[in-house]
């Protein structure tokens, strides 16, 4: 059993980040929340905006809940625009071509992630970071109330990580709900709430600026990180012990 005794309530209209060491069950929890695991593999119930997730028809669920997975396949032959348009599938009647609203949503999503300029290029011709921005645009194009993301910052450089933070904040300010699994703890601390996991269990859930959350974070990572307040933001810093003895690598002093 990967997850045990999970009892979580993730508030609507807020951004929750899920953190924990490798193998904590973060990605599995996110898949359970998205209803992507076989029903036989899940005991218990997930509710989405007050309704049992299993009872919501697949297409309706897809319109309410967008998913951005880790290492999403290799749509190398499709252009960035085609990939982003896949996010509109839940909105399109069967066999109907994309509507004007679909094209508008895709353009907005690609512009939001600054991927509009290479809309004509196939995914195979993009760098890792560029691909990730197109895949994020695909998830944004769904225009769902809830956005679930598994490691959305993979391959993004620091400026685009910052852009991603602003995009998430704008989504939440507009009434959306964001749940993201993140390895970068400092970036995860920019969310509203945090779920701290280890060994398939939820150890703590609380606001990102709460001292109890910081204590849980430091504890789950064996106190090898420290949460500090810097420039108005909470940051997780590695707790490096400087060795001022002769065991370190000797440098040449000039």
């Amino acid at each position, binding site marked *: 059993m990967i997850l045990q005794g999970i009892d979580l309530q993730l508030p609507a209209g807020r951004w929750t980040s899920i953190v924990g060491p490798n193998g904590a069950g973060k990605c599995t929890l996110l898949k359970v929340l998205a209803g992507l695991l076989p029903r036989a593999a899940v005991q218990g119930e997930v509710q989405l905006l007050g309704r049992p997730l299993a009872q919501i028809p697949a297409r309706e669920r897809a319109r309410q809940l967008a*998913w951005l997975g880790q290492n999403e396949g290799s749509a190398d*032959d499709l252009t960035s625009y085609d990939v982003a348009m896949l996010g509109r599938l839940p909105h399109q009647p069967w066999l*109907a071509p994309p509507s004007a609203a679909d094209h508008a949503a895709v353009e907005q999503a690609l512009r939001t992630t600054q991927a509009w300029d290479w809309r004509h290029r196939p995914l195979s011709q993009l760098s890792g970071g560029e691909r990730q921005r197109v895949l994020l645009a695909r998830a944004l194009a769904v225009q769902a109330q809830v956005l679930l993301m598994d490691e959305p910052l993979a391959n993004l450089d620091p400026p685009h990580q910052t852009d991603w933070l602003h995009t998430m904040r704008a989504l939440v300010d507009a009434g959306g709900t964001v749940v993201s699994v993140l390895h970068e703890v400092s970036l995860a601390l920019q969310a509203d709430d945090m779920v701290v996991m280890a060994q398939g269990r939820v150890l703590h859930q609380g606001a990102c600026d709460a001292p109890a959350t910081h204590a849980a974070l430091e504890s789950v990572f064996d106190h090898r990180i420290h949460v500090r307040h810097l420039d108005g933001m909470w940051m997780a810093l590695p707790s490096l012990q400087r060795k001022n003895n002769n065991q370190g690598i000797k440098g040449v002093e000039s």
Partner: protein
Amino acid sequence: MTSVPMDLPTGSATRRAAWRAAWLLLASAVLTVCGASVGSTGFDSVLRMHGDPVAWQIVWDIRLPRTLGAWLAGALLGLSGAVAQGLFRNPLADPYLLGSASGAALGGAVAMAMFGVSPVAAQWMARIGITGMAFLGAAGAVVLTLILARGVQHTLRLLLAGVIVGVVLGALRDLVELASPDILQAMQAFVLGSTAFVGWMACGLMAVAWGLCSVVAWMLARALDGLTLGEATAASLGLPLLPMRAGLVAAMALATGAAVAQTGLIAFVGLAAPHLVRSIVRVTHERHIVLSSLMGAVLLMAADILARWLLAPQELPVGVLTAALGGTYLLWLMHRRTAQCGAL
């Protein structure tokens, strides 16, 4: 219906795909004329066909059906290859690697042994019987491959399972041949691949199968687009993957079964056609399937004309020619990719 603004990539892709399709159809028309002209009596038969019953018979009853039969078999194999590569998210997947061609050949052999029919049979029921058994064999082989591979998630396991199923069903086909020596000659033509036995009835059957498979594959093409992003993302988009996969596997099996039943085992067309399309235009599966089908048709038609012309008045089995040309193409593709990786 909403029109697509032409400055959007979707609009330009539609234009490009339409142009490629037009070129392939034009090539098909030119090759049809060539196919009707190639033979021991050459173009003379075409010129004299309205006044000479023998020339009419040569062109109308022999050359045209086999030329159009090659087009239809190629179209079926191209479509099947495009569906297989999209469905299994693997550019190496083709109907033969997943065992469906071996299954179709076994089904054809069983039909011949049980009902005493041959590929040259003139009766509709015999033709339908061979096609039906080949379809069942192809579908059964794909299902067996999927069961052995425990789904399509693990590419290596899938390809290995396909190879195993192909070998085992090939051995069973050999046993059927041993038990019924009177089908040996027919099976030899079957295994080498040939359009020599294709008549108007076979063309009719393949045309119906092509129409059915094209409609099903085109309607389910969105599942293939969704699957390019992975299983979880495709499911998150609300796509009913299970029935869609079943429909696509059925279309792939019917296309392979229909082609193999009428022309035997013709290698590499199903693998090469989608690759060639990808190298000239990158579009969604809705258009990729149609273009791959047309490309397969043109490839096999051209190969068939070449097979009839190279050693005229003798002719090569077209399956031998496509295997030689297709193998060379794959080697070139591997060399090019190795060179590109080396350059990187």
